[in-house]
C-alpha cells in the first residue's frame, strides 16, 4: 500500500525538529500532528498514542551537516517503522520526503509515498463529525468503515488538546503551532454563557405551561379541534411553540447535528421576529391600518360584483356553448342569491373591519410567519363564497359523472359486480331499463352545463388556493430554511465537513492515483500561477479505479469546480454562493448534510454523474503557504500561454521518495531503484517507468501543463535533490504532476 504522510500546513514554517504523530498501520499512513523542536517529554496530552514518526528538517540557511547527521541518527534512537524524513529547503523552494524501512516491502506499492498536506485547525473545527471511534476498537472500525481516511481525521480531531495548549514559545517544549485562532473567548460570551442557563430554565418552564394549557381537553372537542386543524394560524403557533421548546430545552444537544438544528431554529426565529417587528412598525405608523380597512371592503364588493358578472355571462350562452337553458337559469340564480347574501354580510361587517385589522396587526410581534398565516386565514374567510360555489359545482358534477357511468353500464345491459370487482352482464326488467335510459338521456344532455359551472368555479378556487399556497410557501421558507448552516457554508465551509470517503485504499491491480490539472481555459490563468493562487486541483484518484480517463472538464462548469478560488471580489463570492446552493440541493437530494470534506471535497456522487466513483478535489491545497509568495518572472511579460521558462521562474519543488534499506542493519543506504522523485527517474534509471503505470497526464494530454520541462536528473535522489524547477505536488512512478 502507498505510504501516506499527512502533514499539517501550519507546520511548514516550523524549524527543524522531530515529527510527532501517530502511525496508523491499517491505512499505512503517518499522521503528523506537530513538530517538536526540543525533545523534552512528549506528553500524552490526548488519548491518541502519539509517537515520534520521523524528523523534520527546515533548512533556512545553508544546510548544516551536523544537524542533518543528527537527525539521521535519531532514526536509530526512536526505532519507528517506517522512519520518515521530511525536508524543506531554503524557504520552501523544494521538498523531500523519505521513508526508510528496515524490511523490504512485501506488497506492491509499498515503496511509494504520498505526502498529503492538511489544515489542522479546519479538521478540528469540522464539528459535524467529531471522533466517535474509541482507540481500542479503532482497528476494526476503520477497516469496517468505508471511509479510509476516517482514522486519520479521527486522530487529528482527538489531538485537539495538543493543538490548543501549545504556543510557539512555551518552556522547553516548543511546538510549531503559533496561531491562536479557533480559541475565541471574550468576557461577553462568557457572561452570556453563564446567564443562559437560568434564563433557559425559566423560559422552558413557561413554555411547558403553555403547551400544557394547549393540550387541555377542551381543545380536543369537535368544533375546536376541527378549527385548529383547518386554520393555518393555529398550525403556525403550534410549530413555533415546538421550536421555542427545542431552543430553550435545558438538555444538552447530543450530537453536532442536533446542535446545528438548534442553531438553525434560533436564527430562523430571530429573523422571523425581526421581520414581524418591521411589519408591525410599518403597519401601525401613519394610520395605515385605517387606509387598509377602507380599501378592503370595496375590494370585497368589487370581487362580488365581478362574480355576479361572471354568473350572468354563464347564464347566457357562454362562448357559444350549447347549455341547457333551464338548468343554467336555476344554477345561476342559486349562485346569485349566494353572492347577494355574501355582500350583505360584508356590509354588516364593515364598521368592525378596522378594529379587527388593528388587532391582527399586533400579532406580527409574534413573528412574520404568524402574521402571514393570519393573512392566509383572512383570505380564506373572505373568499368563503368561492369555496361554497366550488363545493356545490364539484358535488353536482361528481353526481352526474357517477350516475352516467353506472347508467351507461345499464344502457349496455351490464352491471358492476361488487363481489368480483368486474362488469357482468345482467338481465334487467323492462321498467328498470326504461327509467334507466330515460335518466341516462337526461343526464347526458345536462352534463355540459354542470361541467361548465364546475370548470369555472374550480378555476376560481384554484386562484385562491394559489394565493394561499404562495403565502404558505413563504411561511415554510422562513420556518425551515437552515440559515445558520447556509451562513457557515458560505463563510466557514470546513465546519460542515463530512467524513472523507475519497482516497480509499485501492486494489493492487489498479493504477495509482494521479493529479489531474484543469486546463488553462478553466483556470483562467496558467497552471503554475493558478496553483500558487490556490486553485482547486481535482484529484483523480477514484476515477482511475473505474478506468475512466476523460478529464472532468465537462462537468466542471455546471457547479464551478476547477475554477480558481483566488478570483478577486464578487467573482469569488458569487461562485461560493452558487456552490453553497448546489451543496444544499445535493444535501436535500441525498438526505445528508453538506458533503464537504476537509481538504478533500466530494464533487458529485455516482447518482449525479453516473460514474461509479466519486471525484475528489483538493480543496484547501493552498499550494503550501510559501513565504514569500513566488511570482512569475517578468520575463514573459504576462504572456502565460507560452511554456514556462525554468531558468527564470524559481518554483517550489517537492519530491517524495522512499528509501529502502535491504540489510536491516544499515538503515540509510543510498536511494536504490525505488527512488520516487518522478520526472527524474526515467533519466536517472536505465529502465523506463513501469508499464503498469502509464505516464498519464503528461505534456500532450494537458495543454496547461504542456510546456513544463522535466527537471534534469540528480545523481542521488536521496541526498542531492533535483533542480528546483517545477512543482511536484504529488508524485508517483512514471507520472509528472506539473
Amino acid at each position, binding site marked *: 500500500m502507498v505510504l501516506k504522510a499527512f502533514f499539517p500546513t501550519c507546520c511548514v514554517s516550523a524549524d527543524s525538529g522531530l515529527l510527532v504523530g501517530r502511525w496508523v498501520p491499517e491505512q499505512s499512513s503517518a499522521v503528523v500532528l506537530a513538530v517538536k523542536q526540543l525533545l523534552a517529554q512528549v506528553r500524552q496530552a490526548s488519548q491518541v498514542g502519539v509517537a515520534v514518526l520521523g524528523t523534520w528538517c527546515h533548512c533556512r540557511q545553508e544546510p548544516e551537516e551536523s544537524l542533518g547527521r543528527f537527525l539521521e541518527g535519531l532514526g536509530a534512537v526512536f526505532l519507528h517503522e517506517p522512519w520518515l524524513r521530511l525536508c524543506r529547503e531554503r524557504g520552501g523552494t523544494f521538498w523531500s520526503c523519505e521513508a526508510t524501512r528496515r524490511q523490504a516491502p512485501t506488497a506492491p506499492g509499498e515503496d511509494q509515498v504520498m505526502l498529503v498536506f492538511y489544515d489542522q485547525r479546519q479538521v478540528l473545527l469540522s464539528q459535524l463529525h467529531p471522533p466517535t471511534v474509541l482507540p481500542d476498537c479503532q482497528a476494526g472500525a476503520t477497516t469496517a468503515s468505508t471511509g479510509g481516511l476516517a482514522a486519520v481525521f479521527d486522530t487529528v480531531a482527538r489531538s485537539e488538546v495538543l493543538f490548543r495548549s501549545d504556543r510557539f514559545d512555551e518552556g522547553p517544549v516548543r511546538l510549531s503551532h503559533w496561531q491562536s485562532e479557533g480559541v475565541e473567548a471574550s468576557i461577553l460570551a462568557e457572561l452570556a454563557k453563564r446567564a443562559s442557563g437560568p434564563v433557559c430554565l425559566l423560559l422552558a418552564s413557561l413554555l411547558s405551561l403553555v403547551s400544557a394549557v394547549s393540550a387541555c381537553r377542551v381543545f380536543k372537542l369537535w368544533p375546536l379541534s376541527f378549527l385548529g386543524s383547518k386554520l393555518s394560524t393555529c398550525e403556525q403557533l403550534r410549530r413555533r411553540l415546538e421550536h421555542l421548546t427545542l431552543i430553550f430545552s435545558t438538555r444538552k444537544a447530543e450530537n453536532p447535528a442536533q446542535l446545528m438544528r438548534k442553531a438553525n431554529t434560533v436564527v430562523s426565529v430571530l429573523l422571523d421576529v425581526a421581520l414581524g417587528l418591521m411589519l408591525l412598525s410599518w403597519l401601525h405608523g401613519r394610520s395605515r391600518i385605517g387606509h387598509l380597512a377602507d380599501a378592503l371592503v370595496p375590494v370585497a364588493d368589487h370581487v362580488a360584483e365581478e362574480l355576479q358578472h361572471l354568473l350572468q355571462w354563464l347564464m347566457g350562452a357562454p362562448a357559444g356553448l350549447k347549455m341547457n337553458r333551464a338548468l343554467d337559469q336555476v344554477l345561476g340564480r342559486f349562485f346569485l342569491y349566494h353572492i347577494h347574501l355574501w355582500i350583505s354580510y360584508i356590509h354588516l361587517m364593515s364598521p368592525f373591519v378596522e378594529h379587527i385589522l388593528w388587532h391582527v396587526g399586533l400579532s406580527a410581534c409574534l413573528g412574520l410567519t404568524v402574521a402571514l398565516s393570519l393573512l392566509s386565514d383572512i383570505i380564506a374567510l373572505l373568499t368563503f363564497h368561492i369555496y361554497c360555489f366550488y363545493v356545490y359545482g364539484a358535488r353536482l358534477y361528481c353526481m352526474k359523472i357517477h350516475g352516467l357511468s353506472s347508467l351507461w353500464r345499464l344502457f349496455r345491459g351490464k352491471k358492476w359486480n361488487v363481489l368480483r370487482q368486474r362488469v357482468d352482464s345482467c338481465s334487467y326488467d323492462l321498467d328498470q331499463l326504461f*327509467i334507466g335510459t330515460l335518466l341516462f338521456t337526461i343526464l347526458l344532455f345536462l352534463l355540459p352545463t354542470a361541467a361548465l359551472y364546475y370548470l369555472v368555479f374550480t378555476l376560481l378556487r384554484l386562484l385562491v388556493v394559489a394565493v394561499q399556497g404562495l403565502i404558505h410557501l413563504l411561511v415554510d421558507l422562513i420556518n425551515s430554511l437552515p440559515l445558520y448552516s447556509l451562513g457557515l457554508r458560505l463563510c466557514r465551509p470546513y465546519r460542515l465537513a463530512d467524513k472523507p470517503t475519497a482516497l480509499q485504499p485501492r486494489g493492487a491491480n489498479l493504477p495509482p492515483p494521479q493529479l489531474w490539472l484543469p486546463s488553462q481555459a478553466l483556470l483562467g490563468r496558467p497552471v503554475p500561477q493558478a496553483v500558487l493562487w490556490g486553485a482547486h486541483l481535482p484529484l483523480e484518484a477514484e476515477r482511475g479505479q473505474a478506468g475512466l480517463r476523460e478529464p472532468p472538464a465537462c462537468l466542471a462548469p455546471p457547479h464551478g469546480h476547477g475554477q480558481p478560488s483566488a478570483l478577486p471580489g464578487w467573482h469569488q463570492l458569487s461562485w461560493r454562493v452558487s456552490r453553497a446552493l448546489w451543496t444544499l440541493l445535493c444535501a436535500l437530494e441525498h438526505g445528508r448534510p453538506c458533503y464537504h470534506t476537509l481538504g478533500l471535497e466530494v464533487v458529485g456522487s455516482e447518482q449525479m454523474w453516473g460514474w461509479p466513483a466519486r471525484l475528489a478535489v483538493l480543496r484547501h491545497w493552498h499550494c503550501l503557504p510559501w513565504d514569500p509568495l513566488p511570482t512569475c518572472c517578468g520575463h514573459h511579460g504576462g504572456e502565460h500561454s507560452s511554456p514556462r521558462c525554468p531558468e527564470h521562474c524559481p518554483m517550489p519543488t517537492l519530491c517524495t521518495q522512499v528509501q529502502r534499506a535491504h540489510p536491516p542493519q544499515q538503515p540509510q543506504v543510498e536511494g536504490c531503484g525505488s527512488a520516487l522523485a518522478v520526472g527524474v527517474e526515467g533519466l536517472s534509471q536505465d529502465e523506463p517507468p513501469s508499464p503498469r503505470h502509464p505516464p498519464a497526464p503528461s505534456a500532450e494530454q494537458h495543454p496547461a501543463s504542456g510546456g513544463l520541462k522535466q527537471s534534469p536528473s540528480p545523481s542521488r535522489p536521496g541526498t542531492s535533490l533535483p533542480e528546483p524547477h517545477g512543482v511536484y505536488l504529488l508524485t508517483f512512478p512514471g507520472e509528472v504532476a506539473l
Partner: protein
Amino acid sequence: MCAQPVTNTKEVKWQKVLYERQPFPDNYVDRRFLEELRKNIHARKYQYWAVVFESSVVIQQLCSVCVFVVIWWYMDEGLLAPHWLFGTGLASSLIGYVLFDLIDGGEGRKKSGQTRWADLKSALVFITFTYGFSPVLKTLTESVSTDTIYAMSVFMLLGHLIFFDYGANAAIVSSTLSLNMAIFASVCLASRLPRSLHAFIMVTFAIQIFALWPMLQKKLKACTPRSYVGVTLLFAFSALGGLLSISAVGAILFALLLMSVSCLCPFYLIRLQLFKENIHGPWDEAEIKEDLSRFLS
C-alpha cells in the same frame, strides 16, 4: 420362393394405417380411401314459404320503426292530436294485454310467475315517470341543433334494428341494448315536439311499440301462426299507407325493401344452398394448438 410374396400381396388387403409395413408403393391410393367421406350432413333443406314466414319478424320490426317515425311526423306537424293517439294507444294496449293472456290460456303467465299486480305497478311506473319527466324532456335539447338530434335518432334506430333479437343465436344480439337505443331515440325525437304532453305521449307510444308489441308478436307467432301472418300483413300495409301519406317515394322504397326482405332474400338463400360443399369424414381436422410464436422470433 420369389413368387410367394407376390401372391401374398394380391391377397393382402390394403389397410388405412401407417403403423404396419404394407407391400404397396408410397403413392398407392386404394379405392376405399375416401369411401367414408360424407357431404353436407348438417345442411338443412329450406322450404321457401317457411323461410318467408320466418322473415316476417324482420318485416314486423322494420314496420314498427316506420310506424313510429310516421306517427312522430304527424305529431310534429300537428296533424295528429295527442289525446287521440293516447286513447288509441291505451285501447290497443288493453286489447293486446287481454289477447296476451287469452292466446295461450294463461300458461305463460303461470310459468313466469308474473302477477297482475306487478303488471299494474310497471304500467304505473311508466306513466308516472314519463309524465313527471316530460317537461324536462321538452326542454332537454332546446339548445342542441335539430340536425344533431335527427342524426342521433337515425343512428339509434339503426342500432335498434341491428341488435334486435330476431331469434338468431349470435353474439351481436342484445335485446337490452336494442330496447335502450330505441328509447333513447324516442326521447330525442320527443324533445323536438311542441309541448310536453306531446313528448309524454310520444315516449309512451315508443314503449308500446318497441317493448310491448314484440312480446305479443312472439306469442302470436308461437301459438297462432295464421293470425300472425294476417297481423303482419295488416301491419305492413298500414305502415306503407302511413308512409305513402307523407312521401310517395319513401313508400315505394320501403315497399321494395319489404319485398326484398320477405321474398328475394329467402329465394336467394335457397338457391345458394345448392352450392354448399361441406365435407365430413372419420378424420380429425388439422388443428394447430401449439404456440407458434417461438418459431416466429
